């Protein structure tokens, strides 16, 4: 967006402030600024407390015995204990917690690998190679972002079922290796468009083909986009519920969300302590990624909106 353009319905005349007006404005601004500052901080702190309360409550409740959880507004545990975690880690149906964890990990890492390779390659084609049909395909790709997934899951399930691939990880990973996630392709395309073409051209003059340009020039430059994508891909795969619900049947293949649901099904209804503990454990990697990589996450999201 060019900074010098003006919206059609902005005030008709722009006056340049006079020196006195500026000084006056500044004085007013300063005295208001203290008041504003206080209001700002109070508002944001209150908001933060309200927003983060559920997450903190979940964490604290995992350390409390169940009877202390349900109606208890106060966060601090009276008799903090690790009993809930012991129960959650005990596994369900003869399958250990670590099996579920590993399954989720395999799926998530697989997703990251698949997406990094397939989406970067596709993005390169869209952003850097001119070939007939490119624009049409690009529009189609964006279209898939707006397409409700319901219309493809049934035939996909039928095919995987007939091929005997239900109850394996294949249906959950195949799409990742075939760039079926338009969000990441789009992200990478936007990023690449901002990279200067001089490097490409210099390399081309040196006789490099597309493969070389992609591998030696683009990929290294794309690291921020790749990192953002990887983190999102990991987290989305980790939290995915519908896919595993559909395709993972035997308990020893369950990913954490499915295992969590089975755990809730099987624990006595009032054993919230154990449920909270398991919920917390299931979210640990996501929280870790968030704390370490928040900058990448937030900026990845922010850049989306910039080109509209």
């Amino acid at each position, binding site marked *: 967006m060019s900074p010098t353009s003006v919206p059609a319905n902005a005030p008709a005349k722009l006056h340049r402030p006079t020196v006195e007006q500026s000084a006056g404005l500044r004085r007013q601004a300063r005295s208001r600024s203290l008041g504003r500052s206080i209001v700002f901080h109070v508002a944001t702190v209150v908001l933060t407390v309200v927003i983060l309360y559920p997450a903190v409550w979940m964490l604290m409740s995992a350390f409390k015995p169940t009877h202390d959880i349900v109606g208890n507004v106060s966060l601090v545990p009276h008799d903090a204990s690790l009993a809930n975690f012991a129960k959650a880690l005990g596994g*369900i*149906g*003869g*399958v250990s917690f670590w099996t579920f964890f590993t399954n989720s990990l395999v799926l998530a890492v697989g997703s990251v690998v698949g997406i990094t390779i397939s989406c970067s390659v596709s993005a390169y084609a869209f952003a850097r190679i001119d070939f*007939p*049909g490119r624009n*049409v*395909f690009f529009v189609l790709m964006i279209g898939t972002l707006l397409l409700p997934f319901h219309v493809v899951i049934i*035939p996909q399930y*039928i*095919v995987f*079922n*007939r*091929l*005997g691939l*239900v*109850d394996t990880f294949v249906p959950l990973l195949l799409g990742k290796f075939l760039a079926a996630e338009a969000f990441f392709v789009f992200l990478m395309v936007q990023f690449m468009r901002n990279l200067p073409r001089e490097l490409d051209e210099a390399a081309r003059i040196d006789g490099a083909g597309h493969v070389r340009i992609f591998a030696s020039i683009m990929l290294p430059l794309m690291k921020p986009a790749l990192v953002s994508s990887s983190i999102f891909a990991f987290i989305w795969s980790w939290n995915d519920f519908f896919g595993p619900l*559909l*395709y993972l*049947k*035997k*308990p*020893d293949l369950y990913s954490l969300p499915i295992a969590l649901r*089975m755990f809730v*099904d*099987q624990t*006595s*209804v009032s054993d919230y302590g154990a449920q909270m503990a398991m919920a917390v454990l299931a979210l640990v990697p996501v929280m870790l990624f968030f704390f370490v990589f928040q900058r990448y996450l937030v900026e990845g999201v922010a850049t989306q909106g910039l080109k509209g």
Partner: protein
Amino acid sequence: MKRPVLSAAAAAAALTLGLAACGGSSDAPGTTGSAAGDDAPVTLTFTWWGNDDRAERYNQAIDLFEEQNPHITIQGQFQDFSNYWTARATEAAGRSLPDVMQFDSAYLREYAGNSHLLDLGPYVESGAIDLANFDEGLVAAGSLNDVQVAIPTSTNTLAMFVNPDVLAATGVEFPDDGYTWEDLNRFVQDVSDADVPTDDGYKIYGSGDYVATFWFFLQHLVQQGTEPFTDDGGLNFDEDDVVDWLNLTADLRAADAVYPIARALALAPLGGFTVNEVASEQSWDNFLAGYSADSGKDNLEIRPIPAGPDGTSNFFRPSMLLASGANTDHPEAAARFIDFLLTDPEVGAIFGTSKGVPADSGQRAAVDAEDGSVDAAVIAYEELVAGTGTVAPPIPVKGFGTIEATWKSLGEELSYKTITPEQFAQQWFAEAELAVR
């Protein structure tokens, strides 16, 4: 450019549909079986429905089995009744049903009809599953079109349970044996009018809204002399019958005299009766064990159900069965586990009558029925019922499980007062027509 893509997509679609059309016969990979010799380590998946009490008992039985068969590991999993069947349905589609599963006659036709269940016949014949101490008629209840797709574990019949402590608090008396449905309704209204709270401050009720359970409706039909299902698997009743039944408790619902549905759902998988807020509940007689464990009471009473014009017209049915998924990789091990659960006397002692009265006479003998115990009460009840004469059980039609579940969810809506009995009947029949087809 675009055209090759379009044709490719069309080709992919055609391939998908072709695969879909290739009928559904079991390309079950498991039929090659475990030829790997008797002692190769094997893991069997085993599922059941039930509460914590049943889970405990199963875990005991599983431990016992694993001791006796060190090379077999049992991976047990359980859900509540409704979730159990949705889980099995998705497994069936993916041909990954458990190696051994607790089964209900309501779903037998559907699963057997789609070839999901292993034929246990060869194992019965060879004696791997030893049914020598079984009643032949009962074994037949698990056989469809001459294929033994499942074997009953036990039998049960309907009963009325009363919580004397809760009742005593209200000062109302339960009607004497031989009471009718109208008597029951009057009792419920009386308890509600008494307006007595429990120690925790929740109001005590006489009963939940019992019209919401499909089997009670069927029992009521049988009492009126109507066979619920025709010989060719259709429904032998109509919307009016349903509406008449639902209206039995219409006044109670209108007066809010039945246990509030919101609280009942919030307590799930427990219920009003098992948290000691409801004085009576109808259910299968074998539920006494589970109810006693959940409620913490050892003095729950088991009584006859309300009587119709010709008495209670109880029937005995297989309370549950054991089956094996046709896709199993370990049929021999599965058969061994099934045989263990069906015939081992220790298992009889572990479960008592909690799953029903055991079908195997050896297990029946092993049930520790000392005076005053839950098992003694159930056995005594069944003797009482047998003494007053029973009728043949209705055989569940195809899709029974689905229509039973639909009845229950519509029953919830009725309790929430979001639909009328007429709408209930209409919507239920619409589903039933599709399910029973």
